[in-house]
């Protein structure tokens, strides 16, 4: 249902945008015959409703059409780009969690301490800083001035593990800072809330060791809502790393989608956006399934 809605919306929006893909593909000098032939070949002379159903029907069978520009199938184009985007999004979320969980937890355990104030300021900045600006600053400092890391690009892990890591670090930071800041605040409030609950007092009253009280009765309970929020952040990153991908010339889906917009490459754009929607749904499904595994109240 959601996917049908998204596909319809995307289809209409794309066709609302001015610009003729055939004209863009042909350049400035072409004959009327070639123009019409190309339009016909891509089915663009058909009424829009018909175009949608043709496309949707094929999409159901896994055929997302062919790129106007390169002539490659959309599925193969997406398939090429997907690993890079997945890598970046997962790295960013991982980084965000690695920072957010300890920092948020310490802040909650020592409210109004130095660490808490520090974390609060940093996360406020992190939420406010635009990712493209951060990306550029990171490049300037670490790739430019210090020269520690490359400015961008992507190599598969299997080819060059070290190069993979080197190229991943800066984009992951740029993409993960916002999520990290959001998650830090979330972990803090979540742990604080768990600490205040009555069952923690029961746990203390039965004489558990401090680490048991924290691990089993505070942290474990605080973790549940964190799973949901992390899922949302991951979904957001998978579809939202466009800007970071472009600054770091990271060959992911975001870049593909942007190129498709520029050249009015409808099939590619539709395919990419459909995939973003699909990813969002899949992540939500995974979160729900995971939840039923870790929260006994939802089981059955």
């Amino acid at each position, binding site marked *: 249902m959601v996917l049908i809605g998204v596909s319809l919306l995307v289809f209409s929006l794309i066709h609302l945008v001015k610009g003729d893909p055939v004209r863009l593909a042909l350049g400035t000098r072409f004959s009327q015959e070639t123009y019409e032939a190309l339009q016909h070949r891509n089915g663009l002379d058909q009424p829009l409703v018909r175009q949608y159903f043709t496309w949707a029907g094929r999409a159901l069978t896994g055929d997302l059409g062919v790129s106007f520009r390169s002539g490659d199938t959309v599925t193969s184009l997406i398939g090429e780009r997907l690993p890079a985007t997945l890598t970046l999004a997962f790295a960013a979320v991982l980084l965000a969690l690695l920072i957010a969980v300890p920092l948020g937890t310490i802040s909650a355990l020592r409210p109004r301490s130095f660490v808490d104030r520090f974390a609060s300021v940093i996360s406020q900045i992190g939420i406010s800083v635009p990712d493209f600006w951060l990306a550029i600053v990171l490049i300037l400092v670490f790739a430019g001035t210090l020269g520690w890391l490359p400015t961008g690009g992507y190599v598969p892990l299997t080819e060059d593990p070290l190069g993979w890591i080197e190229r991943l670090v800066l984009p992951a930071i740029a993409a993960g800072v916002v999520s990290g800041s959001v998650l830090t605040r979330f972990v803090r409030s979540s742990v604080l809330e768990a600490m205040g609950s009555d069952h923690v007092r*029961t746990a*203390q*009253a*039965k*004489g558990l060791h401090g680490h048991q009280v924290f691990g089993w009765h505070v942290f474990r309970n605080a973790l549940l809502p964190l799973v949901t929020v992390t899922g949302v952040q991951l979904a957001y990153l998978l579809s939202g790393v466009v800007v970071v991908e472009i600054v770091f010339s990271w060959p992911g889906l975001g870049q593909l989608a942007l190129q498709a917009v520029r050249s009015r490459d409808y099939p590619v754009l539709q395919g990419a956006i459909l995939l973003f929607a699909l990813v969002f749904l899949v992540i939500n499904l995974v979160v729900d399934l995971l939840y039923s595994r870790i929260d*006994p*109240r939802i089981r059955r």
Partner: protein
Amino acid sequence: MSAVPLPAADPVLEVEDLRVELRTPRGTAHVVNGLSYAVGQGETVAVVGESGSGKSVSVLAMLGLLPPRVATVTGRAVLQGEDLLTMSPERLRQVRGPGAGLVFQDPMTSLNPVLSIGKQLVEGIRAHDDVPKAVARRRAAELLGEVGLPEPDRALDRFPHELSGGMRQRVVIAIALANSPALLIADEATTALDVTVQAQIIDLVERLQADHGTGVIWITHDLGVVAGIADRVLVMYGGRCVEDGTADDVLERPAHPYTRGLLGSLPDLAAPLDPDGRVPDLATVPGLPPPPTDLPPGCVFWPRCPVRSDPRCETEQPPLVTVGPGTPGRHGHVGRVLEHRAATWYQEGTAR
């Protein structure tokens, strides 16, 4: 009666001049102000008073369960010969459980919703007794059977949300009893339960108490419960003990105007109707307890007292003094006469 007075055994808990101050945004709150009492072996002491009188805070303070950042606790609380207030955090941890078990008010929130009943019992047992998990599990099942949970073995793998309120409270009691505590503290343990379940829980505690000789502190504002179970009653108001004595003395011959007000506000189902055929209005104690940040200098009850007349009421704190002949003690106080004391300037005999 008995010719040879038996030597009184040492009390399980002896509280002396317990004071608790909490730092609040509105200033320092004096929530417990010089509380002293003792609980003998197998004895049930009921602590009564309205919300905010310091009943719960006083026991939480003894067991170090108040946030140290906010609370300052002074005085002495000697449990089985050791002062809880000066012991090391590790020793205090060891005492929580085997020394004193706590049952809290709301069974819906006092269990961890995401851990099984078995896990919550087993971790409590193993925190004090280094036994294999299987042994602890067996003991946990026995405990659940003892508190009257049906199918105790299967209940171990259940989660709190799968049980009713009464069953959950039995689990909470099982947790509190897991390490055979010398003292059981029930903090409004039956307030959230309906009356039949309440009666079952009270029976359960009384039976366990008879079997194990546990001392019980029963914190409540339900005077009906007090009459049923308490050996002694301690009435708290404004963080102070305003009256204490055996249940008979306090409930039948209340000396403090506040106790009288409390007892007077019990609904009397046998009361005659008004001349115009209506049920008479419920008697209340007018006014509100004083804010603990701003206690009156004299008697804490002075601002609400219906019989204040003595010039000292407003300026001088009345001491806790003997007001009646007292009653011979039972449980843990055999051979001793238990005093009936009240802190009031009001004198008019103790007849109600």
